[in-house]
């Protein structure tokens, strides 16, 4: 039974300029004890997806269709505010992108780590002990003293590890990591990824790992979900998607990844065209305007085609793959 099962999720925001259809028919699973990566360019709906799962959509946003089943029985789109809050931090924890801004600047690390345990029923001393133990696990030196220090006294890498410690302290079933390493430099990125991997095994939780860094996803994740303009265009295991991409967008995305360049090029390849305006979502395939394989049928909405076990692509040509690097 998957920890998280998103089915046919649609999210709309009402704005002054009309309704924005931010997520359209998003479906994927996060199986138990697995790390699932979500990749896509900025603006592809990754943040909306996180907010929808956490029940933290802005006031003008709503889930118009679909379900988010948590641990098989609870539909997060139907839970009330109180039930949702009880879930957040306890069973679904989150680590955000900006490590320096993620902690409250005027409270000490200890105060904040004790505060998030407010439902645990432990004594203050026990909460502090648990916090310092968790800091030790993420290799913060002198964890006891670190508790009484303020976020600004730590480096970016350290605050991100503190944020991870805070998130995993309650041993959640699901950890959502929203580009946790993007703001860090390469060495720290590797160290943080390894730490996440280690803790995930130790705690036995599932991880939904949001990133636009394909290399990190390939390294860390077992499954991957490719998003484009609020739709899941392709999903499957990392091996399936990265080695045998079936959606033209995935193919282009892989081609544009600097780490995957086989030969030196003067310019980094880019995908021509722009992400469509979601206020007027075009009929048919969302990627068609930028797609070099488009043909007549693309004016209709393509089906989710399964080409291998759990390998799904939203494209009419999913069963006729093109060789990587055939174009551009």
């Amino acid at each position, binding site marked *: 039974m998957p920890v998280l099962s998103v089915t046919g999720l649609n999210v709309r925001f009402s704005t002054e300029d009309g309704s924005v259809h931010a997520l359209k028919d998003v479906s994927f699973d996060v199986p138990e004890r697995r790390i699932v990566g979500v990749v896509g360019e900025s603006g592809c709906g990754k943040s909306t997806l996180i907010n929808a799962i956490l029940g*933290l959509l802005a006031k003008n946003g709503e889930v118009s269709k679909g379900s988010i089943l948590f641990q098989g029985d609870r539909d997060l789109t139907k839970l009330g505010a109180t039930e949702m809050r009880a879930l957040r*931090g306890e069973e679904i924890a*989150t680590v955000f992108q900006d490590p320096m*801004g*993620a902690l409250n*600047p*005027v409270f000490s690390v200890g105060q904040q780590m004790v505060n998030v345990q*407010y439902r645990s029923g432990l004594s203050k001393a026990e909460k502090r002990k648990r916090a310092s133990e968790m800091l030790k696990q993420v290799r913060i030196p002198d964890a006891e003293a670190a508790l009484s220090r303020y976020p600004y*006294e730590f480096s970016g890498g350290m605050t991100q590890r503190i944020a991870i410690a805070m998130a995993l302290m309650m041993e959640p079933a699901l950890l959502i990591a929203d580009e946790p390493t993007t703001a860090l430099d390469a060495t720290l990125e590797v160290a943080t990824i390894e730490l996440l991997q280690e803790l995930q095994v130790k705690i036995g939780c599932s991880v939904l790992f949001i990133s636009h860094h394909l290399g990190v996803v390939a390294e860390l994740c077992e499954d991957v979900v490719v998003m484009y303009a609020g739709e899941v265009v392709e999903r499957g295991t990392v091996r399936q998607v990265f080695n045998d991409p079936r959606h033209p967008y995935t193919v282009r995305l892989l081609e544009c990844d600097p780490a995957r360049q086989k030969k030196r090029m003067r310019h980094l390849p880019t995908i021509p065209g722009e992400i469509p305006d979601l206020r007027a979502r075009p009929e048919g395939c969302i990627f068609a305007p930028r797609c070099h394989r488009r043909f007549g049928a693309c004016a209709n909405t393509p089906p989710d085609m399964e080409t291998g076990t759990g390998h799904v692509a939203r494209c009419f040509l999913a069963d006729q793959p093109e060789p990587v690097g055939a174009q551009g």
Partner: protein
Amino acid sequence: MLNYAIKRLGLAVVIVSVAMFLLFSMIYLIPGDPASVALGPRATEAMKAALRERMGLDQPIWVQFWNFYSGAWTGDLGTEILSERPVLTVVMEQLPYTVALIVGGISWSVALGIPLGCLAAVRRGGWVDRIVGVLSVAVIAVPSFVIAIYALLIFAVWLQWLPAIGAGEPGEPGDQLVHLILPSLAVGIGWVGYIARMVRASMLEVLEASHIRTAYAFGLPDNQIIYRYALSIAILPTVTLLGIGIGQMLSSAVFAEIVFSRPGVGKLVYDAILTRNFPVVTGAVLVTTAFFVLLNLIADLIVGALDPRVRSNF
């Protein structure tokens, strides 16, 4: 932090020195000489000469300024013309009443302004927000002495709920507190508006911050997030604002003291003007200016102490 405090203190000393120089130049520039202004038109030449000598006006100007300047720093602000008591003593007798009035004003403005600003930010765009917005502008715009007079008219003359004049019986804190309610409301009400606006604006900014998003993601109760996590940051600029506000409240306090016939520095200066007792006027102006500069300094240092981020920069 210590470095910062010393730097700010140095700047404060320079500013007060320049203020003293300006005040001195003003006295020196009076048409006619200060002695005749002080004694009025009926004074004899001999009386004027005696006063001039006593005030040191027969000496060269730089000597006069030096005497004035060094005297002021050592607490010698000259003597009152009528009773010949030291001006500093006279001013210091009245200062506690004015301080009480200003503290009362701050209490009103903080007690009403912070919750209103907070409420407006949380209910952004709603009717509560709109009403708080209009009221804030209104209480800022209307001069405090008009509010003081109308408050006196309504609560003391018509309704007779509160006493109209005086500071209450000495030694009876309860009575003194009751006498403080109306005047301090008049002093503080404008600042309810300033604080409400400031808290609303900084609250809206803080609520957008990513650590607030983190707090929500950790399932903390909404009330704790808004009133503890966000407000404790949003409140910081208010302290600086109050540092500036105290100067304006001092101005309002002058009017409040006169309207409500309360003792205090403002009443002292006002009475001194009417009796041409001008050493008292300059002395009181100097003391209040120094007081004001000092309070601004303290407000800055408090912000430093409250905000670990500011603290770390010095």
